[in-house]
């Protein structure tokens, strides 16, 4: 049995390499993308793929781009990235946190090739990093939820208790508390990035227990559909999910990588590419908010005002006073949490009814 499994895994790795097989090119810049999921996931990977397509369309005959999907985070990733280098790719985007070590290793071996790693923190002269400040959108969502909720309870579906998700919950809570300090958020973890059935069931469990708005940090539109069926309200994730809940979606946090990819590939073409560290929010266009729908005009105006103040930098989401669950101060009044504190966040703010992950 073990031998068969090994064989199956090897076959998968091989299949991934075959998918990256080179096509003949004439003087075009070859750009490679490494995806952790399938392009058909309608979530994280799908948004990167839309970005790649937009880049290809914008730069047309100057660029030839390839992608490899379903690449496991581990030794296989290194082989896939190396394979892209061997087949002549000069700029390679690796789009999942778990590709960090693999990308670093291949980048060290191939200094003439440029690399970009999403959501990581290790950089080299030929390795840049980029990520999105999606928590900004969650703060706006929190404010909307506080205005729109009748029961005062919001259901929040989490994937895994990791810093990115935890900081998202805190940002959401700060948003609700800025409007209505007694708001309650019920959190259900599905412990999966991708199990639509379970996400839908989690939404049902939350709605049955008094929540009337669903927020999610998972990828599929299942929760949106459940909320629509029950006549509740919900926030989308990754892409605009308005189709799945025309009378349900309040807004959606959209990951839009197209502008970033166009800029970076252009920079590589012009010879102005540098190893940078971009953590872009609303101002960069990486984070976009879907139109504010299914809410009265005053709530919409409030959301737009908040979006504007975050966009032009006059308001920072993690501005003190921020009190942790145990009552200690994380940030003094007026103090803004530094980026490393947000990236490594493993504590909840006061008001979150959930034990912090360790």
């Amino acid at each position: 049995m073990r031998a068969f499994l090994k064989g199956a895994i090897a076959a998968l790795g091989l299949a991934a390499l075959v998918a990256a097989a080179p096509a003949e090119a004439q003087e075009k810049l070859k750009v490679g993308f490494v995806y952790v999921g399938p392009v058909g996931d309608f979530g994280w990977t799908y948004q990167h793929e839309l970005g790649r397509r937009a880049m290809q369309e914008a730069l047309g005959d100057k660029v030839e781009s390839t992608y490899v999907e379903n690449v496991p985070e581990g030794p296989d990733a290194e082989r896939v990235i190396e394979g892209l280098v061997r087949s002549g790719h000069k700029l390679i985007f690796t789009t999942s946190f778990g590709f960090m070590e693999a990308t670093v290793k291949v980048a060290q071996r191939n200094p003439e090739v440029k690399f970009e790693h999403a959501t990581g923190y290790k950089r080299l002269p030929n390795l840049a990093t980029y990520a999105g400040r999606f928590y900004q959108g969650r703060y706006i969502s929190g404010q909307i939820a506080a205005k729109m909720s009748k029961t005062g309870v919001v259901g929040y579906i989490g994937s895994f208790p990791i810093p990115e998700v935890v900081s998202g919950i805190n940002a959401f809570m700060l948003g609700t508390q800025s409007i209505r300090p007694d708001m309650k958020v019920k959190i259900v973890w599905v412990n999966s990035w991708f199990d639509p059935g379970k996400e839908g069931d989690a939404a049902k469990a939350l709605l049955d227990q008094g929540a009337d708005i669903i927020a999610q940090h998972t990828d599929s539109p299942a929760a949106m559909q459940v909320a629509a069926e029950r006549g509740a309200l919900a926030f989308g994730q990754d892409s605009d999910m308005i189709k799945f809940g025309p009378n349900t979606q309040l807004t959606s946090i959209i990951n839009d990588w197209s502008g970033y990819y166009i800029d970076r590939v252009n920079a590589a073409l012009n010879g102005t590419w540098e190893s940078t560290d971009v953590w872009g929010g609303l101002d960069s266009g990486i984070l976009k908010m879907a139109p504010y729908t299914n809410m009265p005009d005053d709530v919409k105006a409030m959301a737009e005002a908040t979006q504007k103040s975050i966009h032009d930098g006059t308001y920072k989401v993690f501005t003190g006073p921020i009190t942790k669950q145990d009552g200690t101060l994380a940030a003094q009044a007026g103090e803004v949490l530094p980026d490393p504190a947000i990236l490594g966040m493993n504590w909840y703010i006061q008001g979150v009814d959930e034990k912090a992950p360790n």
Partner: protein
Amino acid sequence: MNLLEPAILTIITAATPLLLAAIGELVTERSGVLNLGVEGMMAMGAACAFAIAITTDSTALGIAGGVAAGTALAALFALMTLGFAANQVACGLALTILGLGLSGLIGADFVGARRDPMPKLEIPGLSDIPFIGPVLFGQDAFVYASVVLVAGVWWFLFHTRAGLTLRAVGDNHVSAHALGSKVLKVRLAAVLFGGACSGLAGAYLSLAYTPFWVKGMTAGRGWIALAIVVFSSWLPWRLMVGAYLFGSVSILQLYAQGAGIGLPSQLMSSLPYLATILVLVAIAGTRARARAPACLGVPFVPDR
């Protein structure tokens, strides 16, 4: 706030895909064939059902397409394992990989499309009874079909001559062959039935449970169905208990999290697996130990 009724309704929808896939695999295994490709057949069923339902705008045709897709993959499996007597474990794993990959290809154009969920079949009068009405008489067609299938399989296996033949083929194919049973034909029928059920389970996922298509939406349910077959000792009613038990615990842990029970969510997420194994092992111990079909996974090559 009465949570019992909504929780039960959610449990039924979560258990149904497991039950549908598992009852088909039970018949396949009873005939002596181990098909580990349930996950792949489910994925294909889900993709084809959704694709056809969207293009023809007909749920019925979608379901038929899902069943056909599952059956087609099963036929391929039958060709390899029955026709060429290839290793069933290897072919089953290959079938899963093939099914998941192919489903992505077929579904690629349907990512992001939406459909309304299947309507519930309500029985006038009965559906209005408090509690019992919505739980027993307010479900969609798949739920009723899953129960009918379990009853039908039980009746077929233990109360018909054909069922007896099928079990004989699974327990001792040499003797069954000597007695004149068409071993490979019986197994072919059982494998195709298993594929059809897996396809139906897939159709349920993409048409009723979460009515949209994304690659990998089966999320391991095929493997859980396989495990339930084993832990149910290949008995239909016990299999139903297993599927509902797994569904119950996986749903109740979500409700428990929502209620703010202070247990780590990772532990809660593993509870369905623990509980199902414990309970099924416990009931397996109470009666004469039911055993696996003796020829499970053994290829049969007629000697003439």
